């Protein structure tokens, strides 16, 4: 599953969602004293939210789930390819923070892997490869099925 995410100018109410996510990441980092631990917790929170949303809204496909996330302003998806590997090209994620030195989309990655887990009844893990905050023009994730 791949995500390419661009930055955008935010509306005030969107800023609230963005700031809460950003500030929670920072608070988690302060509390745990580790960026890795904060990222793992943020991912798990995202995953729990993804599972909850999939259960509550009874998504049958990833396309349906993505459409729900778009309607709620979490991101805009330009392209979605499903199969063994699902590829998503997305812009305007609510988690994007231009100018931050933190890698982004810890929560969004978790949400998508949580939805994938609920849809497929298998374990998924989000891996963030690139993001605008470290000089890339887009964010890129791989959401992999974990075979145990």
């Amino acid at each position, binding site marked *: 599953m791949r995500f390419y995410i661009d930055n955008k100018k935010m509306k005030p109410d*969107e800023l609230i969602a963005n700031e809460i996510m950003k*500030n929670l990441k920072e608070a988690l980092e302060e509390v745990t004293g580790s960026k890795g631990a904060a990222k793992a917790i943020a991912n798990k929170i995202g995953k729990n*939210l993804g599972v*909850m949303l999939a259960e509550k809204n009874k998504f049958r496909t990833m396309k349906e789930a993505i459409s729900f996330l778009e309607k*709620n302003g979490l991101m805009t998806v330009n392209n979605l390819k499903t199969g063994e590997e699902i590829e998503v090209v997305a812009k305007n994620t609510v988690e994007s923070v231009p100018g931050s030195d933190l890698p982004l989309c810890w929560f969004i990655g978790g949400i998508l892997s949580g939805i994938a887990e609920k849809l497929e009844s298998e374990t998924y893990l989000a891996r963030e490869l690139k993001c605008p905050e470290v000089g890339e023009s887009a964010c890129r994730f791989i959401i992999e099925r974990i075979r145990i």
Partner: protein
Amino acid sequence: MYLVKEFVGVSAAYLDEVMRESTDSVFYRVGEKTGTSLARTQQRECGKDLGCYLSVLKKSGLIDDFEVKTENERTLVTVKDRDVASSADMRSLVRGFLAGITHGIGKAYEISAKMEGDKCVFTLTTKK
């Protein structure tokens, strides 16, 4: 609506489960930083109108409704939201948000929270 309330609810539930210490201070800090940032970006539009900043919070989906009343040296902010009234983490988040906003617009208040059924009343008293 950005699913902010769902996000905070799931975060609070998970952090309450894994953290040994109270999570109130984490959510207070998150609210305070968010409020400070909003005060900075919305100052031209909202000036010193607390209700204007709270309406942004409502529009984001974090709170259902609110009312602001000023009496003598204190301001009462009633947040009409069952989730805020029933969750210590949500109350801390909103209390921190009010602290960040008021600090951002140059006012210093002591802020307390009191539950009243499905509502939560935040009392802002001018610091002496």
